[in-house]
């Protein structure tokens, strides 16, 4: 990847479902680029195509037409396993519902991506502890999700996302299940990770005050980008 080139590029990306009359376009020719180190909020009502765009950004999904390049790679044309490899190496995911494995301790949840990388058990443990320290969860390593609060669970999920030292963090409504105080904490944490580690963060949200934590907001409507603006420094 050439220096200064965008990390993520959408070039006339279409995503369509169904056939003939019933054909629906979740994305209808979307163009945008995200540079390394950016903190971008993606907004829009449901059905606007923002989740589809996020799935493509996270290499979970592929465009029907157009090109999605990630780190200079045409990620939209890769097969399942190569995309899995990209996810494992460069992408961390944070979901609205935390998506931790039940009855599995915080440390084990955080170690999970490292298992698929083939990292040895001792090193896994060390890296997981570091990641948990980064999200401020020292002393909770052996708690299972059921023994943790929502905010703590989301911190574990963030630790799991950053334990592989990814280039990109994909967050899908990360504060959707949290109260105002917890939302504030999680957003502070994401901002800190963005600033301190240079982690590129893309975040889907429908709350304007959450989007305000980002440097830039991309708004979707009916499969199109309707606005792409830099945010004023806040928080």
């Amino acid at each position, binding site marked *: 990847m050439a220096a200064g080139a965008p990390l993520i590029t959408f070039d006339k990306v279409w995503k369509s479902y169904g056939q003939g009359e019933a054909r629906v376009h979740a994305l209808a020719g979307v163009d945008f680029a995200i540079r390394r180190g950016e903190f971008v909020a993606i907004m829009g009502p449901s059905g606007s195509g923002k989740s589809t765009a996020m799935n493509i950004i996270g290499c*979970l999904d592929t465009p029907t037409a157009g090109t999605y390049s990630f780190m200079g790679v045409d990620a939209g044309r890769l097969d399942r396993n190569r995309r899995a490899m990209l996810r494992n190496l460069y992408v961390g995911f944070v979901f609205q519902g935390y998506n931790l494995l039940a*009855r599995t301790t915080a440390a084990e949840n955080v170690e999970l991506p490292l298992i698929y990388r083939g990292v040895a058990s001792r090193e896994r443990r060390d890296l997981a502890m570091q990641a948990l320290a980064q999200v401020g969860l020292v002393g909770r390593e052996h708690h299972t999700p059921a023994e943790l609060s929502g905010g703590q669970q989301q911190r574990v999920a963030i630790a799991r996302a950053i334990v592989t030292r990814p280039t990109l963090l994909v967050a899908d409504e990360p504060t959707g299940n949290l109260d105002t105080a917890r939302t504030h904490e999680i957003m502070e944490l994401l901002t800190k990770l963005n600033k301190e580690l240079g982690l590129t963060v893309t975040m889907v949200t429908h709350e304007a005050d959450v989007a305000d934590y980002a440097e830039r907001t991309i708004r979707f409507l009916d499969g199109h980008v309707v606005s792409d603006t830099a945010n004023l420094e806040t928080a």
Partner: protein
Amino acid sequence: MIWETVRLSLRSIRRNVLRSFLTLLGIVIGVAAVIAMLTIGSGTTQKVKADISKLGSNLLVVRAGRPAGPGGPGGLDQVVRPLAEKDLAALVAHLTGARAISPASQKQVRVIFGTESLTSGVTGTDSAYLDARDWKLVSGRPFSDSETRSGTGVCLIGETVRQQFFGAGDPEGEIIRVNRTSCKIIGLLEPKGYTGFGQDQDNVVLMPLHAYQRRIAGNRDIDNIYIAADDRTPTSELQPRVEDILRDIRRITPDRESDFGIRDMTQIADAMASATTTMTGMLGAVAGVSLLVGGIGIMNIMLVSVTERTREIGIRLAIGAHEKHILIQFLVEATVLSLLGGIIGILIGLGLAGLASATLTIPFAPSPAVILLAVGFSALIGMVFGFFPALRGARLDPIDALRHE
């Protein structure tokens, strides 16, 4: 990675203890049935072989009357001509390749000592009988030739008879009454236990043939002639020689069938053993069907497990698991599950076989090959029946899987 996966699957089995146990049950029952059947079966085969060799291996038994078999005419118009002393004499004079030739006539007779009585198998025979049957004396001596010739009232008794009349005492020299005739005990036979057909081989009294004929049977007939082949001569070779000599002495013209039968104990042993082996195989096959049912149980529960854990699969795929990781995870889980069932099944099967061999007094004959086969087979069942559900899990679309509630 594999170790990691095995640990993971053990944990998921532990989490659903009851469900895992019920799933295992199919495999457990299947493997236990197969192991028990095959172990009991091979024990029975051993027992049958041992029993028949107790009757005497390399032994031919001649008895009067046409051998039973298809194609033979009905016996009504045919008066059975018993074996006689001259037949025995001819065999003794002309037969080569025999180690011992001995006559025997038998009858169940009431035997009395003091106030005790017992119905016992009384055999009239000669001194070669012990050799022919391969029986041994614990104490005392066999009949002398003169005792055999003159039909003296002497006898050898089996262990059951001794216990009935004398407890732990020494029976030698005591006089017992056998069917209104008295005879003096001169020796005790080695205990032989029961045959596989439930016959007490120690409830016997042996006496000289002439004494038996005169005082018990009241005729001059010989029921059986026992012929033991020597070490160099197979019974299959001996049999036609016996037949020739007897046809000659009994003046049977070539156009007529023999009016006596020759049973080869070795053949009977082989036939019985192969019959039990066939039985064992059939029972094993039936038990094997339950293994198949167990396998379907595994498949069923693995499908449930994959559906239940769709979200988990989605998470794993999202954070970088490959299809093969998911496939291996569920395959290992199914294999561990069925292997666990297999091992429990083997233990239960061996336990059942042990119990059966204790109650049926057959040898406990576990076969390492069968056990190994059962372990391998149950692992295979896990893999085969776990593959389809595992593949289904691995092929899930991560987006759909994550959306799954």
